[in-house]
């Protein structure tokens, strides 16, 4: 699914990285536990989370996540926005809560990760 369609579907506001809206992801992962994100997220996955601290950007950087959706209308600090910009990570925020945001994307055809295939390593 294109990041642009995700933005439209979730009625989300892009906070940084507009130039990457044409990029495409294969799956989504919704989680507030960064170790789980590190353990399970594979390539071309968009992260949905309620956390907006610098560690979310760091975590994304480690596993090459290039798009993050903040839920419940959360917006990070300028420092976090700058960190994302430096790393070419697109950030958007939606008013939906995590459960609903994930459900909406799922019903539009964006699947979750298949753990049967194993974690990334």
């Amino acid at each position: 699914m294109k990041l642009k369609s995700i933005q439209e579907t979730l009625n989300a506001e892009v906070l940084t990285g507009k130039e990457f809206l044409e990029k495409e992801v294969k799956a989504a992962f919704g989680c507030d536990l960064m170790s789980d994100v590190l353990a399970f997220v594979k390539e071309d996955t968009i992260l949905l989370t309620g956390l907006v601290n610098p560690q979310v950007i760091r975590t994304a950087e480690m596993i090459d996540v290039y798009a993050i959706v903040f839920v419940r209308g959360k917006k990070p600090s300028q420092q976090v926005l700058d960190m994302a910009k430096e790393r070419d990570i697109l950030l958007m925020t939606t008013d939906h809560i995590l459960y609903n945001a994930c459900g909406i994307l799922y019903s539009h055809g964006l699947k979750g990760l298949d753990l049967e295939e194993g974690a990334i390593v």
Partner: protein
Amino acid sequence: MSKDNIGLNLEYEVLRNDFTKAGEASSNIKKILTQLGINSSIIRRIAIATYEAEMNIAIHSLGGCITVNVTPKEINIVALDNGPGIEDIELAMQEGYSTAPNSVRELGFGAGMGLSNMKRCSDKFKITSQKGKNTRVNMIIYI
């Protein structure tokens, strides 16, 4: 420089409770390994391992350092801190076990998956610790 003729030693200090800077060492290590042209899935494993190690030093210890030795054959990572050490390593290794305070959980850490993530990402994993002394994690990843 390419990965076929490297002999590189990197060293980073990790401060206690500094959650703005925490991750900078891992970020730097990842950048350097990318420049060396190392395979991206191997870099991912190293990034996860060093980042979890860095967070553990920042969260659970009094501070410490991470050293990375790069050779044409392998990446050798040592995370060494200044204490307070781990009383029961077997317990600490269990998935879900964590002594992280709430302030750390609010950052998204403290789910008790860090050490097992580090082990899973490494080809060789060794943790040694003594209560009242320090903790040393050694991870080797073949390239």
